[in-house]
C-alpha cells in the first residue's frame, strides 16, 4: 500500500507536466493505488507517464503515407527542413549497426541490405557491426566519419553510452538513428515503431478481453532492467491493475525456451490451471504453449510476436492468441530517410512507424509457409528482390 501511495505521488506531477501531450487515456493516480492486490508488483522505474500516454494515443491515430507501405508511413509527423543537406548523387551511405546477434536483427539487416539494392543512386554502402559492444560502436562511428559518408545511419547498442558518439558525428554528416534512441536531438530524424508501451498494452488488453473475471494470469518477462522490455511490462501492469484479473506470477525466463517451459509447467502444477499468459517477447511463446499441451491442458489465451513458429502454432492448434509486433520493416525506413534528406526533401523529426497487431482476423495474411521458424512476418520484405530465399525461405 505504501508503495502504491508513493507511486501515486510520483505519477501526479508527471501527469501534470504533460499538458501539451495528447489527453491521458488512463487515470494514473487511480491505477497506482489499485495495484496492491493485483499481484503485479511495483511500477517499473522506467515508466514515464507522458511517453505512455503518447504511445496510447498513437495506437489509434491514422498514419499518413503510401497505402500498403507501412515503412514509409508516419504518425504525428513534425516535418523538418533538410535543404541544407541537399547534394547530388551518387551517394555513399554508412551504417553503424549495434549487432546482428538475434533473429530479429538478422531479418532486419537482410531487409535493409535489400532496400539499399533498390536504389541505383546509392553506389556505396559501408556497414560496420559493433557485435553488441558499446566501445566497438563508438570507434565504428568515429571510423565511419573518415570514410566520406554522405549520410550516417546508427542503430545504437545502448542509449546513454552512444549519445556522445552520435553527438560528435552530427556536425559532420546528416545522422539517422533508428530502433533504440539517443539522448540528443541532433540526428536529423529518429525512426521507431510506436514503442514498448503499445506492445505491452495490446497484449494485456487482449487478455483482459478474453479471460473471464478473476482469471489467473502468468506474466513472463525475459530479464529486468532493459528499457525496451520494461516499457512493455509497465504498460501491461497498468492494464492488469485496472482489470479484475489476478496476476499470479511475474517470472523471468532469460529468453530460454527450456526455462520458459519449466516455469509454465511449475505454475500449472501449483495453481491447477492458468487462464492467460502474457509475454514481453514472442521468442519463447511456443515453449509456453507446449507446456500446456504436455500437461494435457487446453492452452489459455496467450500473446506471442510475429515470428513464424508462433503464428504457425496459433493456426495449427487453433489458439486464442494475439501477436503485437515490433516490426522489422523499420530497417527499410532509414535508407529511405537518408535518400530523402540528401535530396533535400522533408522528413519527420521523430518518424513514428505504425505498429500493427496480428489478430485472428489477419493471421492468414501474416502466416508465410516456407519461411524459417524464427522469421518475422512484418519484415515488409515480400516485394524486395531475393525474397524469400535471401531470408532463408522457400518459394
Amino acid at each position, binding site marked *: 500500500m505504501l508503495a502504491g501511495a508513493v507511486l501515486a505521488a510520483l505519477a501526479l506531477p508527471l501527469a501534470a507536466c504533460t499538458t501539451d501531450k495528447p489527453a491521458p487515456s488512463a487515470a494514473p493516480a487511480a491505477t497506482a493505488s489499485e495495484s496492491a492486490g493485483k499481484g503485479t508488483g511495483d511500477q517499473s522505474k522506467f515508466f514515464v507517464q507522458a511517453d505512455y500516454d503518447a504511445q496510447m494515443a498513437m495506437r489509434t491515430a491514422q498514419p499518413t503515407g503510401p497505402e500498403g507501405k507501412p515503412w514509409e508511413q508516419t504518425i504525428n509527423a513534425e516535418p523538418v527542413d533538410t535543404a541544407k543537406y541537399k547534394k547530388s548523387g551518387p551517394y555513399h551511405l554508412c551504417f553503424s549497426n549495434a549487432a546482428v546477434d538475434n533473429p530479429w536483427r538478422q531479418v532486419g539487416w537482410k531487409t535493409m541490405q535489400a532496400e539499399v539494392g533498390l536504389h541505383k543512386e546509392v553506389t556505396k554502402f559501408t556497414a560496420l557491426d559493433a557485435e553488441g559492444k558499446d566501445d566497438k560502436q563508438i570507434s565504428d562511428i568515429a571510423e565511419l566519419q573518415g570514410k566520406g559518408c554522405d549520410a550516417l545511419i546508427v542503430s545504437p547498442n545502448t542509449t546513454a553510452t552512444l549519445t556522445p558518439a552520435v553527438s560528435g558525428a552530427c556536425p559532420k554528416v546528416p545522422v539517422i538513428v533508428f530502433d533504440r534512441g539517443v539522448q540528443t536531438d541532433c540526428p536529423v530524424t529518429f525512426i521507431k515503431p510506436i514503442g514498448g508501451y503499445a506492445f505491452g498494452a495490446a497484449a494485456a488488453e487482449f487478455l483482459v478481453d478474453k479471460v473471464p473475471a478473476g482469471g489467473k494470469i502468468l506474466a513472463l518477462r525475459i*530479464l529486468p532492467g532493459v528499457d525496451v522490455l520494461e516499457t512493455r511490462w509497465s504498460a501491461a501492469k497498468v492494464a492488469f491493475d485496472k482489470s479484475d484479473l489476478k496476476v499470479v506470477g511475474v517470472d523471468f525466463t532469460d529468453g530460454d525456451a527450456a526455462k520458459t517451459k519449466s516455469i509454465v509447467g511449475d505454475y500449472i*502444477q501449483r495453481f491447477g490451471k492458468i487462464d492467460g499468459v502474457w509475454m514481453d517477447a514472442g521468442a519463447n511463446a511456443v515453449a509456453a504453449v507446449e507446456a500446456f499441451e504436455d500437461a494435457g491442458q487446453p492452452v489459455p489465451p496467450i500473446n506471442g510476436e510475429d515470428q513464424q513458429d508462433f503464428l504457425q502454432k496459433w493456426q495449427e492448434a487453433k489458439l486464442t492468441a494475439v501477436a503485437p509486433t515490433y516490426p522489422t520493416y523499420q530497417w527499410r525506413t532509414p535508407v529511405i530517410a537518408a535518400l530523402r534528406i540528401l535530396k533535400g526533401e522533408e522528413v519527420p523529426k521523430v518518424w513514428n512507424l505504425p505498429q500493427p497487431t496480428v489478430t485472428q482476423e489477419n493471421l492468414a495474411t501474416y502466416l508465410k509457409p516456407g519461411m524459417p521458424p524464427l522469421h518475422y512476418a512484418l519484415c515488409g520484405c515480400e516485394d524486395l528482390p531475393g525474397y524469400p530465399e535471401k531470408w532463408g525461405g522457400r518459394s
Partner: protein
Amino acid sequence: MKRALPIFVVLAGLLVAIAVANPYFLEPPSLLAFVKRAAPLVILAAGQYFVIVSGEFDLSVGSLVTAEVVIAARLIDGSAAATWPVLALLIVLGPLVGLVNGTVTTVLRVPSFITTLAMLLILSGAVFLWTGGAPRGALSPQFRELGRGGLGPVPWSALILLAAAAAAIWVMRSGYGHRLIAAGDNDRAAALSGVHVARVRTVAFMVSGLSAAIAAILLGGFAGVSAQVGQGLEFQAITAVVLGGVALGGGRGSVVAAMAGAFTLEALFTLLNLYGISGALEPAVQGVIIIAAVALGAVSLPRRKAAAA
C-alpha cells in the same frame, strides 16, 4: 560411496527447502518434472566427470549441444523419415568431436583447457556462420518425443538418464574406470604401471562428447530449436562435478557424486527461482561454488597425501 555422502545431504536439504516453499513439489508429477528438467545436465555432468577425473577439462560441451540441436533441425526439417538417421548422426558426431579434443590434447600436448576452449569458439562460430544467427528448419514430432513425451507418467528423459547413469557406474567399476582414475591421480605412475594414458584420456573426451549428444537430443526435444540452447552448459556441468566433490586436477571423486552435484545445482536454481531471485544470479552462484570447491580441495589435499604416506 562414502565420499558421495555430503552432496546427498546437501541435495536432500535443498529438496526440503523447495518443498517448504512449494508443497506441491513432493508430489510425483512434480518430482518427475524436476528429474526431466535436470536429466540433460546430469548426463552432461556424468560425461564431464570422466574428463575431469582424468585430470582434464571439457569446455566445448555447451557449444557442442547447440551445434547438434541446430544441425538436427536443419537436417530433419520437420520430416519424420529423417529422424532416426539424424539421431544416429548426432550420436556419432558427439564422440567424434571428443576424439578431436582428446587427440589434440594428448598427442599434440595442447592443454585441454585451451583445446576445448578453442573447440567451443570453433563450434559456436561455425554455427553462427552456418545459420546466420537464426536457426532454420524444424525438429520432427518424433524427435521431440524423447524430450517431451514419456512412457505413461514417466518421462523418456528419466529413463534415458537411468540408463546413462547405470552405464557410467558400470564403466567406472570396470578396468577402464580404474585406469582412468590412475591416469588422473598421477599420469606418470599410471604410465609406468602399463596404463596407456593418452588412449584412456581420449576415450574420456569421447564419453563427454557422447553425453553432450544425448543432452542435445533431450534439450532439443524438450524445448525445440534455439541458437542459445547450450549456452553456459559447460560451466554448469563443471560446477556440478566439483559440487559433487570431484577434485579438479583429477584422481578423486565418484561419478555418482558428480551426478548428485548436477541434481543439487538444478535444485538450487529451482529454489532461487521460487524465491523470485533473478536468473542473472545463477552464473554468480556457479562462480562461488567453483572457487569454494577448489579452495577446499587445495586445503584438504596435503592432509590426505600425508595420511596416505
